[in-house]
């Protein structure tokens, strides 16, 4: 029996849990852990350049792989710098384990150097957190943290490790891994049988059903089952921002995204539906518009693993608490048992109506000949990569354009901060995403804005060190486009602090960091330019694309209205 220090047990526990990549940044409180890391051959440490960036990289790894993303930072500022990343993962239900150093247990509460109440600061944005009191807590708590982060509704878990718990001079027997059991935590996975029977019936009787997909369907890996169900019942399929990719954008039954900047047909279908079968969604305010006018004619079936999501905003007629994939298996059996199918006549009429809405072509946009329209960038990239690239975004116009115009064909390929809306997310997330899909040889493209990119630009250095060949496309419109759009539309055009007149030369900057970079300025250079970037497989390429400052994200729901009440074109035609 070899005895181990707390630091060695920490490293060994991560190895035993199958961790490949540890995204981290050293500091005083974690010196002993970093020393122990030198002896590990299984863990690859990825040194970020800012704790926010590396924690978002861990998040990106988690989103592409479905595994737990892990990061390690020091106490005090190391831990506070991760808070935005933790909150981002929390809002999007991403499995993340954040190991933070802490001052020694004897110093806690004394305002010691680099001391901060990490458990207190992160409490509202974690699924759970642990403060280790002794070295032997470390393996136990880390295993529990992994279990909590990855089961039920996934989320971030913090493990705070005081410096004296990892002291190399004190050695302990390493506890063999055993199955985690927590008496106070037991998520419901299987749906209620009676409820499954009821929803089978309402599904068979529906005349105007809509299948609505959210991020929970991706967490549950339910893509294949969803496709089957949709085809069997000829269901029109809509997706939230977080659900994009779980149902192929190529499929004719896919109507697009719902909500504020959703397609006209998707929002109309929701508004006129008599049944909304909502899987793994949480009916966020950006989706529902006015709750009082939400889907007035529809019975709502809501399947979600989190009971607190059900009837939180939208009143549910048929709540089912459970894992989407398991519930769909139950539903399939129930459909076979009750021998029901869809009402083809009703579906013919429903689809005819939907095609009419589709005819509005709500995603058509105005082309100006002299400038590149941001929508074109996404369309072109979508075509050139056949909807198969891994795409990360930041937050703003480019994010919505990506959601609207990139035809995602597979789940876990679209990484965006949906809930928290975190600028600066996309680039570092791309680093983790790349490491997650490395073996699949997929291009990983970061679609970002000139504002967003500057929020975690320091990670260019990380990319050089770890040879992360991201393709970064900056939608460079010299403004904070989305805020500017709102200022134009709702603040009488009073442009307040959204001009970015003092941007750096992004091309020169990327080169200074040792990367390839070039600029595209003319519409006719766009396709070839994007292709050129994609063709450079082994290097990071930054493409600064100068695009239209005045582009608006359209269509757009009218605030306070029904889902279907939208402004379709920027010239103000309303419906």
């Amino acid at each position, binding site marked *: 029996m070899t005895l181990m220090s707390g630091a060695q047990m920490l490293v060994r526990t991560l190895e035993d849990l199958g961790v490949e990549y540890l995204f981290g940044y050293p500091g005083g409180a974690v010196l002993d852990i970093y020393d122990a890391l030198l002896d590990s051959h299984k863990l690859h440490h990825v040194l970020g350049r800012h704790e926010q960036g590396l924690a978002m990289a861990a998040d990106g790894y988690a989103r592409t792989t479905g595994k737990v993303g892990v990061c390690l930072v020091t106490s005090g500022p190391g831990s506070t710098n991760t808070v935005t990343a933790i909150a981002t993962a929390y809002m999007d239900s991403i499995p993340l384990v954040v190991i933070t150093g802490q001052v020694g247990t004897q110093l806690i509460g004394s305002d010691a150097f680099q001391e901060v109440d990490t458990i207190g600061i992160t*409490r*509202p944005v974690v*699924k*759970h*957190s642990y*403060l280790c009191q002794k070295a032997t807590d470390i393996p136990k708590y880390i295993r529990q943290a992994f279990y909590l982060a990855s089961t039920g509704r996934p989320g971030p878990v913090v493990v705070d490790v005081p410096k004296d718990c990892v002291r190399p001079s004190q050695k302990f027997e390493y506890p063999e891994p055993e199955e985690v059991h927590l008496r*106070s935590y037991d998520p419901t996975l299987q749906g209620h049988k009676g409820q499954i029977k009821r929803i089978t019936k309402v599904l068979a009787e529906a005349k105007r059903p809509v299948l609505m997909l959210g991020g929970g369907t991706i967490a549950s890996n339910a893509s294949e089952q969803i496709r089957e169900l949709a085809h069997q019942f000829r269901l029109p399929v809509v997706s939230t921002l977080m659900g994009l990719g779980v149902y192929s954008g190529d499929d004719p039954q896919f109507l697009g995204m719902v909500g504020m900047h959703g397609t006209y047909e998707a929002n109309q279908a929701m508004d006129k539906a008599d049944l909304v079968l909502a899987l793994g969604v949480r009916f966020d305010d950006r989706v529902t518009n006015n709750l009082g006018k939400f889907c007035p004619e529809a019975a709502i079936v809501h399947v979600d693993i989190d009971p*607190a999501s059900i*009837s939180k905003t939208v009143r549910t007629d048929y709540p089912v608490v459970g894992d989407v994939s398991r519930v769909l298996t139950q539903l399939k059996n129930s459909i076979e048992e009750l021998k029901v199918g869809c009402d083809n006549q009703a579906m013919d009429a429903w689809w005819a109506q939907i095609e009419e809405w589709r005819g509005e072509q709500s995603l058509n946009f105005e082309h100006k000949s002299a400038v590149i329209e941001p929508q074109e960038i996404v369309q072109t990239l979508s075509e050139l990569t056949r909807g198969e690239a891994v795409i990360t975004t930041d937050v703003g116009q480019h994010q919505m354009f990506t959601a609207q115009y990139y035809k995602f064909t597979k789940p876990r390929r679209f990484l965006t901060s949906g809930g928290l809306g975190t600028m600066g997310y996309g680039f570092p997330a791309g680093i983790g995403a790349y490491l997650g899909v490395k073996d699949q040889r997929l291009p990983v493209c970061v679609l970002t804005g000139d504002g967003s990119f500057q929020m975690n630009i320091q990670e260019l250095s990380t990319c050089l060190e770890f040879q992360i060949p991201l393709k970064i496309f900056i939608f460079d419109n010299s403004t904070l486009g989305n805020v500017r759009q709102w200022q134009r539309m709702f603040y009488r055009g009073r442009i307040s602090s959204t001009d970015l007149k003092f941007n750096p030369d992004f091309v020169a900057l990327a080169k200074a960091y040792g990367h390839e970079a070039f600029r595209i300025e003319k519409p006719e250079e766009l396709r070839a330019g994007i292709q050129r970037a994609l063709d450079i497989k082994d290097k990071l390429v930054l493409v600064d694309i100068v695009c239209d400052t005045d582009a608006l994200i359209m269509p757009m729901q009218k605030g306070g209205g029904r889902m279907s009440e939208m402004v379709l074109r920027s010239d103000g035609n309303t419906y």
Partner: protein
Amino acid sequence: MRHVISILIENEAGALSRVVGLFSQRGYNIESLTVAPTDDPTLSRCTILTTGDSDEAEQITKQLHKLVCILRVSALNEEKNGSQERELVLIKLPTPNRNVREDIKSLSDIFGAKIIDVSPETYTLQYVGSSEEVDTFCETVFKMSDVLEVVRSGVLGIARGNHYMHS
């Protein structure tokens, strides 16, 4: 509407702050909160008095249940057989003369309260009852006498009959 929520929670550092944090984070109201370990020292029983409509109460119980450190949650006011609530109050009064002392003593007898501390200048009364009874007792005392200090325990509750919260 008034809701009394009973919670069985892991008796560990930081657990209570998760409960209190949840209330402030989601904009729920805490009228009173009591907590103490149970017969099983690894668990604490916590009773929270809150106000809000029924949707809000439903969300509160769901959100509480979601906390990993919480084992059981129940809304006592929704118990089928009803529930019993008790609150304890301690009141310190000045006793400047014999008349006041006699009045307080007889009031305390009528209510079934106890005088648990006596000094030449003060009495301390203890009274146990439902929140309403405690309110009535306090009002009566306040009308009769000056008051130096009032300490209320907050509500404790338990379901009636054979319903009980088990670990």
